[in-house]
């Protein structure tokens, strides 16, 4: 999923008549290197979810990493900083990528098919996936990437003007900009715009319940079904992500799961079987599961693209374990992109790439046999 470049972003914003509200921090070449650092005070806001400790230290309670951060230091995600014993987010309204995407690109297949999402990101991430496709923003500190000041109301207005019913927090990791996400979701809801988070699910329970309560849907990247993969390839832990999925289920939050299949690292039959079995038991068989194709990037350039046959094998195993909505992703034109009625097997939503060619679901059900199809559908 590639966010747009800044020029396209500005054009997009300009076309929406909003360019006047967007500032650019690019420095004139003639001024190099004597230009002053841009003031970042407008992006700084006291963080939520942390605890003060003696000696001006703090413990961050946003994600399971629980960084203990000394004065003038930052947490692992690089976007939250301790200043004199108070913890701050440095990325409120600091948008480094923005684009208007089909909701299918997130991917969310059972959520307002064929609509657009005004998609935004800030720098930073609380894990370090060796295959990250957006590492140039996710693995950077906010001051290292060009960004624009886009406060929540502006984003809501841009979404409305561009006929996007949804704001998506995506590309990097929205958990690390939770404060901005929450304020923007509120602004969006006041304007009749929904919000979705495209997240790794690596949050603490209270943060998840507080921040994602404001979401209308969530997509979770479940990177593997083994702690070893999470430790060695992701730099995180599996269990908190599984806990988040269960919590989202209890919150009745519409959730879809993406599993990026990385050749040789998380593509075994037993792993697919365990994954699907866990989802079936803990979340139910109606949760959409997307097996997506890996492409070499960032620190994992030595592995090949995932063979389509591997994705098909994963899909067959997951369906065999009782999951009803299993998709194949990043393979445009593959029939595994369509939504089928689990009872009569008719195609209900036909997709090519991110385009919805046919949408037959009516009142949340199959028009042929009446089977209820779970999701968030057009009213």
């Amino acid at each position: 999923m590639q966010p747009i470049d800044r020029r396209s972003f500005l054009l997009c914003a300009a076309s929406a008549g909003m360019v006047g509200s967007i500032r650019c921090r690019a420095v004139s070449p003639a001024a190099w290197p004597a230009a002053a650092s841009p003031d970042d005070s407008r992006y700084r806001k006291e963080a939520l979810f942390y605890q003060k400790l003696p000696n001006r230290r703090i413990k961050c309670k946003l994600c399971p990493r629980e960084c203990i951060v000394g004065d003038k230091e930052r947490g692992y995600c690089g976007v939250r900083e301790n200043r004199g014993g108070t913890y701050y987010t440095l990325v409120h309204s600091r948008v480094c990528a923005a684009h208007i995407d089909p909701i299918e690109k997130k991917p969310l297949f059972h959520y307002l098919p064929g609509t657009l999402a005004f998609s935004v990101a800030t720098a930073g991430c609380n894990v370090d996936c060796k295959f990250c496709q957006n590492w140039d923003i996710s693995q950077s500190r906010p001051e290292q990437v060009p960004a624009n000041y886009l406060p929540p109301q502006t984003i809501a207005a841009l979404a409305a003007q561009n006929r996007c019913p949804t704001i998506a927090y995506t590309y990097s990791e929205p958990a690390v900009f939770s404060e901005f996400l929450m304020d923007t979701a509120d602004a969006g809801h006041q304007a009749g715009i929904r919000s979705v988070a495209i997240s790794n699910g690596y949050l603490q329970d209270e943060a998840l319940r507080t921040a994602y309560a404001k979401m209308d849907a969530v997509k979770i990247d479940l990177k593997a079904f083994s702690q070893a993969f999470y430790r060695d390839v992701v730099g995180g832990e599996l269990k908190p992500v599984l806990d988040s999925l269960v919590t989202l289920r209890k919150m009745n939050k519409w959730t879809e799961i993406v599993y990026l299949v990385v050749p040789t690292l998380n593509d075994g039959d037993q792993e697919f079987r365990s994954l699907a079995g866990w989802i079936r038991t803990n979340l139910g068989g109606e949760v959409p599961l997307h097996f997506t194709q890996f492409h070499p990037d960032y620190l994992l350039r030595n592995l090949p693209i995932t063979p389509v046959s591997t994705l098909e094998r994963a899909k067959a195993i997951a369906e065999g374990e009782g999951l009803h909505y299993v998709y194949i992703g990043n393979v445009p034109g593959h029939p595994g992109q369509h939504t089928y009625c689990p009872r009569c097997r008719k195609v209900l939503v036909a997709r090519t790439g991110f385009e919805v060619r046919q949408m037959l679901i009516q009142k949340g059900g199959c028009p042929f046999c009446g089977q209820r199809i779970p999701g968030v559908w057009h009213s």
Partner: protein
Amino acid sequence: MRKGHLENRREFLTGCLAGAAALACGDGLLQAEALRPQPREAKSKLVVARDALLRGSGTGVDPARALALLDRAMQTLCAESEPVGCWRKIVRPGQRVAIKVNALGGRGLSSNVQVVDAICERLQSAGVRAQDIVIFDRDTAEMEHTGFRIRAGGNQVQCFGTDRVGYEDTLSRFGSVGSRVSKILTRQCDVLINVPVLKDHDGAGITAALKNMYGVIHNPNKCHPNGCNPYAADVNMLAEIRSRARLHICDATTACYEGGPGFKPQFAWHENALLVSADPVALDHTGWQMIERKRAEKGLSTLEAEGRTPRYIATAADAAHRLGTNDPRRMILSEVRVA
């Protein structure tokens, strides 16, 4: 988005750094020397130089005494009778020298400006042009806050942070680390002189020479898990760093034994010393022992007892890194005082 950003950065820098580009590869001979693994039988020389009167009758470091302290340390290290002879072993006229300071601790606990000025003076006396010297850390504002005078352009020593020029777009890799390296290092420097501060570190145990290189990469926050092990060792193995790092002058004029790396006056002490070596591992090991002695003196438990052993120092000495030695039997430690 990535592509667009890269193009913009490239265009920007093409115009600005044309003159510097030719030097991007540095000096081949010296790079080769720096990259060569140390012979197993070789011993690392390390000097701890002290001056009880470094501050005269005030609290600030006296510039003349800082220069004398530096000279004493360098002449002992290099076995030279004149300061200029020492520095000619480190740099050659025409080379570009970057001095990596540490400005994180504010005025209380950062690389001392007088010490850095003394280094610049001696580099110039060895034939390096003022404008070929750049004092840098990550962030210009932090440096300014610490007391460095920000300078760019003209026939003077340059002084600014990587925030002014950015990091390389491509990743450099070694072991656990994949990072973009400061363009100051890659495009304006043949020789790197590392001027860290000796400090306790709540995560890593201590921070001195090895960990100071975190200020040269774009993602230091990703290198703090597991007590910075093996990250601190791996960062120093990045080719751009290892090929240029020539000398480590650890500032222990003011050091801290607890509560680091931020400045907390109650845990800082005036050691009035410099630790100087070409071996960052030997230097870090020795600095660690100094911190342990001070902790014992203050009735604090050892770093090991606190679960904060700086294990990355041993990693830096292992067969996969060979950045130096952490074995005191393989160090020649000279402790000297300014009269």
